[in-house]
C-alpha cells in the first residue's frame, strides 16, 4: 500500500555544518510571552510513544542512530583515568562488531557522539580518543550546583578548553530563574559562552529545580538568546531529570527561537534515560516537534551512562530473535 510521504527527509548526518547560534540581544518580551499549559503538554507527551513506533529493521536503525547521539558519560566521585580510558574505548566501539555486520551497518562507523567527563579527566579522554574524531565534553562551572565563585567558574571553562575539551556543559544559577532575574541569567550564560571560545556550549538548566514548565521554557529562551549551542535539561543529579514534558517544552522553545531569529539550537536531555524504548520516544519527540535535523549529533545528544547497555541488548535481539543478556556485551 502507498505510504504517506514525510517532508522531513533527514539530511545526512555529519555533513554540512550548521552555523552556531550567535545569540540575540535579550528580548524580555519573548520571555514574558511564554505560555505553557502543563496538562496539555502532558497529554501530548503521553501519546508520543503511542502515536508513533518503529518496528523491526526500522527499530534497529533508529537504535543505531541513538547510539551515535549519545554523550557517553561518567560523572562520579570515583572516576579514575583508567576507567575513563575504558569508557573511551567503549565510545569508539559501542556495539559488537558481529552485530553491526549482521545489521549490514559495519560501514556506518558507529561511535557515540562524545564522551562527557569532569575537568580533571578531560586530558585523559582527549588522549584516549585521539584520532577517533569523537569530541570530549566537560561538565563545568561548578557542576552540578553551579554556585562556586563566578570568576572561578569562568576559569574552569577556560581550563577545560585549554585541555582540549570540544564541548563544555555549563550549569546556570537556578536562582536567576526562580527569581526572574533574566538579565543576570543572560549575562551569566553569555559569559560562559565567551569563555568557551570555539568550544560548543551546552547550557544545563537543571529543570528539576526550576519549579514549573513555564520557568523551564523561559530559561530556555534566555539561554538561547545568550548564545547557547545546546540547551540541556539536567545534570543527572537532580531528583527529576530528563522527562518528556520538559523535553517537549524545551523543543518548542527551540522552534520558537528559530522562528524568531533564524538561529538553530541543539537539545540534550540528560539523566534518567536508561532504556532503548525511552530513547526511541525521545527521537520521535524530536522528529515530530523539530524535524529530522534534530536526529543528528550536531543538534541532539543523549546524556546517558547506562542507556547504551540496553540498546546493545535490543540490537542483538533484533539480529538473533533471542532476548539478550547484559554479560554478552562488553562493558566500559
Amino acid at each position, binding site marked *: *500500500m*502507498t*505510504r*504517506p*510521504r*514525510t*517532508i*522531513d*527527509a*533527514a539530511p*545526512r*548526518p555529519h555533513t554540512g555544518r550548521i552555523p552556531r547560534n550567535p545569540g540575540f540581544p535579550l528580548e524580555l518580551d519573548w520571555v514574558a510571552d511564554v*505560555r*505553557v*499549559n*502543563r*496538562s*496539555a*503538554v*502532558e*497529554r*501530548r507527551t503521553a*501519546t508520543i510513544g*503511542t*502515536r*508513533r*513506533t*518503529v*518496528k*523491526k*529493521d*526500522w527499530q*534497529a*536503525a*533508529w537504535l*543505531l*542512530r541513538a547510539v551515535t547521539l549519545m554523550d557517553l558519560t561518567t560523572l562520579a566521585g570515583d572516576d579514575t583515568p583508567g576507567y575513563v580510558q575504558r569508557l573511551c574505548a567503549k565510545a569508539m566501539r559501542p556495539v559488537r562488531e558481529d552485530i553491526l555486520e549482521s*545489521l*549490514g*551497518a559495519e*560501514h*556506518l562507523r558507529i561511535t557515540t557522539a562524545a564522551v562527557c567527563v569532569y575537568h580533571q579527566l578531560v586530558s585523559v579522554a582527549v588522549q584516549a580518543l585521539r584520532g577517533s574524531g569523537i569530541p570530549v565534553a566537560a561538565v563545568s562551572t561548578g557542576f552540578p550546583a553551579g554556585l562556586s565563585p563566578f570568576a572561578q567558574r569562568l576559569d574552569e571553562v577556560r581550563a577545560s578548553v585549554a585541555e582540549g575539551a570540544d564541548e563544555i556543559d555549563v550549569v546556570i544559577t537556578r536562582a536567576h530563574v526562580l527569581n526572574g532575574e533574566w538579565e543576570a541569567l543572560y549575562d551569566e550564560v553569555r559569559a560562559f559562552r565567551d569563555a568557551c571560545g570555539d568550544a560548543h556550549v551546552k547550557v544545563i538548566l537543571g529543570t528539576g529545580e526550576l519549579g*514549573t*514548565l*513555564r520557568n523551564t521554557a523561559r530559561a530556555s529562551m534566555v539561554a538561547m538568546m545568550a548564545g547557547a549551542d545546546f540547551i540541556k535539561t539536567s545534570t543527572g543529579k537532580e531528583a527529576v531529570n530528563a522527562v518528556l514534558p520538559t523535553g517537549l517544552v524545551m523543543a*518548542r522553545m527551540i522552534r520558537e527561537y528559530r522562528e524568531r531569529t533564524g538561529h538553530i539550537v541543539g537539545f540534550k536531555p540528560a539523566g534518567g534515560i536508561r532504556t532503548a524504548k525511552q530513547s526511541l520516544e525521545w*527521537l520521535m519527540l524530536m*522528529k*515530530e516537534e523539530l524535524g*529530522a535535523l534534530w*536526529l543528528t549529533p550536531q543538534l541532539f545528544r543523549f546524556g546517558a551512562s547506562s542507556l547504551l547497555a540496553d540498546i546493545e541488548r535490543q540490537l542483538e535481539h533484533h539480529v538473533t530473535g533471542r532476548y539478550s543478556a547484559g554479560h554478552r556485551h562488553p562493558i566500559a
Partner: protein
Amino acid sequence: MKVAEIFESMEYGPAPESAVPAHAWLDRHGRRFGLFIDGEWRDPESGAYFDTVNPGNAQTLGVIAQASTDDVDAAVNAARDAFKGWRALGPHGRARYLYAIARGIQKHSREFAVLETLDNGKPIRESRDIDIPLVARHFYHHAGWAQLMDTELAGHEPLGVIGQIIPWNFPLLMLAWKIAPALAMGNTVVLKPAEFTSLTALRFAELCADVGLPKGIVNIITGDGRTGEALVNHEDVDKIAFTGSTDVGRIIRVATAGTGKKLSLELGGKSPFIVFDDADLDSVVEGVVDAIWFNQGQVCCAGSRILVHEGTAGRLIEKLRARMERLRVGDPLDKAIDIGAIIAPVQLERIDALVKQGVAEGATMWQPSWSCPQDGYFFPPTLFTDVAPAATIAQVEIFGPVVVLMSFRTHAEAIELANNTRYGLAASVWTESINLALDVAPKLKAGTVWINSTNVFDAASGFGGYRESGFGREGGREGLYEYVKPSWQASIRPSKAAGGAAGNGAGSNAEAARPPASRAGDMPAIDRTAKLYIGGKQARPDSGYSLPVHDRRGRVVAEVGQGNRKDIRNAVEAARASAWPKQTGHNRAQVLFYLAENLAARSDEFTQRLRQFTARSSDAKREVETSIERLFMYAAYADKWESRVHQTPARMITLAMHEPVGVLGVVCPDERPLLGFISAIAPALALGNCVIAVPGEGAPLSATDFYQIADTSDLPAGALSIITGRRTELVSHIAAHDDIEGVWYFPVDGGGGEVERLAAASMKRTWIAGPRDWMDPVQGSGEEFLRHATEIKNIWVPYGE
C-alpha cells in the same frame, strides 16, 4: 529498506497490528452473522444480508443480517419477557452482571479493538487506547450505579424495554453508553448498531452470552434505517435512545410524538474551538489535532470551528500548517498513523463535495503536501482559512477531517460567534486565564465545555447537547434519569382511552359576561378586566378578542384575553430582555419568598376565587395554603439545587453545572387552578428560567389574579408572562417558536403529540407530563420538576502548573 538506509533517512516504517485473531473470529462465524434475539443467534426472517466492509482497504469482511419488522417484533418481545426477571433480580444481581461484562471487555480488549478498527477504519491507537478502555470504564462505572440504584435513585423505577440506535463512528463505545445505564437501571434493551459497523456489537452479544447474562436482556438486531424505523415505531418500546444525525433525530422525534415513549437524542454538532491570545499556542495546535483529526473528524463533538483572536490567527495558522504536514494518514491497523480511513465512499463524497463548495465560496483551503493512500477511503487533513460565518462550511457539519478557522476581536464576540449555530454539543476554550475561561464557559450554549483540552470523555461525566444537538445526557448521574421514571407513575405511556380532542373548557358558551350584580343590588360591581401579563406589564391581547370564563355552575363570571401567537412572540421578546436569569440564587429565593408572602396576605381573596370554580370549598383554602408552601419550597431550592463535581479519573475538575433551560413555555394543568399554576411555574422560575405561562383554560382567573402578586414582589420584567387563551392553540404557538428552549405541557386529555411534533423542528425540550395529584408533594413537586427546569453543562477544567 536496509537498516543502513533507514539509519540515514530516519523514516518511519510500517508497524501493523496483527488482524489474524479478528479474522479467525470472523471465520469461526463463517463471515455470516445472524441476529442476537432472546439469547440465541437467529437468521433474519427475510433471509436478507448485507456486506460489511473494511474502509481501510475496501474489502468485504462478512455479511450481516437485515432485520425485518418481524425480527424487531421478536426482539422486543424477548426483551419484554426478560424485563420482569431482570427487574426482580435487584440492584446487586444486576451489578454483578455489569461487572462481569466490564471484565469481559478488558479480557478481550485487543480483540475488540482490532475488530473495531477493521470494521470502522479508525486508527488502532484510538480503538486500543481510547474506545475500548472507555467501554470497560463505562460498564464498571454503571455496575456501581446498578448497585446503588435503591439508595441513590430512591423513588425511581426502570422504564421497561429500551430501543437503542447507535452510529458508526464509535460503534462499541456508543453501545456501552447506551446499554450500560439501561441495564444498570433495570431495563432490557434492543439495540441496533449502524449498518456500517455491526461487528463489535455482535462480538459483544457473544460476550453477554459468555458471562451468562439471562436471555432477552440484551438483543442485538442489525440492519439499515428500515430496521431502526421498525424499532422506533414498535408499540411495546418504552424509550428510544438515539445517537446520530440531527436529521434522523428529528424524524424520530416526530415518529415518537404523542406515544409517550421517552426519548433521548444525541445529535450533530459544529462545535467551536476558541483560542484566546493568551493561550499556549503549541498546545492549542495539539488540541486541534485532537479536536478534528481524532477519528478522522467523524466525531459529533469535533471542534470543527476554530475561533481565534484576530491578532493571534496568523501565528496559529502557520503552526497548524506545519503540524498538519507531519500528520500521517494510512492503514488504520498501523500503530504509527494519526488518521485512518473514512467510513464509506458515501461519506468521502460528502466531505469532498463540501470541501469543493468551501473553495467555490471563496475560502482558502490548505492540505499537506503528501498524498493519501489510494486503496481505502482516505481524506487528507484540511484547514480552511478566510472563512466567514456565512460560508456553508462554517455552518454545516462536515463530519470529516476538515476544520474552518475564523477570527474574533473581543471575547464577547468570540462567545457570540461560538453560539452562532443551531447546534450546541460541545465547545473548547483555550486561555491561560482562569478568569476568562470561567467567564466564557457558562456563556457557551453547549452541553460540554472543555477548557484547554478537547474530546475528553468519561463515564462519570454527562454528555449531551443543547439546541439541535439533541436532549438528554449520557454518562454520570444525570444520564441515569433517562432510564427511569418516578415510582408513583404507573406508566409513562398515555392511557389508550385518552383521545386527542382539544380542550373544551371555554368558548362553547357564547353568553357575554356581565359584571356580577353587587349584593346591595343597586350599584354594579366595578368591572375587573383580566389582561395578559407580558414583560412585567398588563397587556391587552393582540387579537382584540376575549373568552368567557365559567364558574362551576356554568355561569359566565369574567372574561380573559384570547392570546395568540403574537402575544407569545412578545412574551419571548420580553423574556430575552429579562434580568431574571442573571440574578443570583439568593435573589431568586428572595423573590419567591416574597411571592409567597404576598400570596399569603391575599389568601382569602384567592380562596374565594377558587371557590367559584370548585365544589370542594373546604379544599380551596388548603389549595392556597399548599400553593404558599410550594412557593416556599422552590424559594428554598433556588440556591440549593447545586451543581456537582464529577469524579473523572483525570487531573481535572469536571463541573456538572446546573443551568436554566432558558425560556420555557409552561402550559399549566386545568385541575387545581392555583396550585397547578404555582407548581408548574415556581420550579422553573426558581432555577432562573423565564416562564411563559398559559393558565389552565377552565379557571384561568387564579393565574391572572397572580400577576398583581408578581407586580408587588420584585419579580423582574419578563421573568413571568401569563398568556390566557385556548390552551391547545397557544401550546402549538409555543412549540413552534424557535426561540423558546423548552415546553412543559400538562395535557387535559392527551394532545402532547402535536407539541412534540412541532418542537422537533428546533429540537426544543418537551415535557409532556402525566396526570398527577397536585396536592401530593411527591407527585406535584420536587426533583422531577427541577430536573426538567435544568440543563446540565459539564465543564472540564484541567489543572497543574
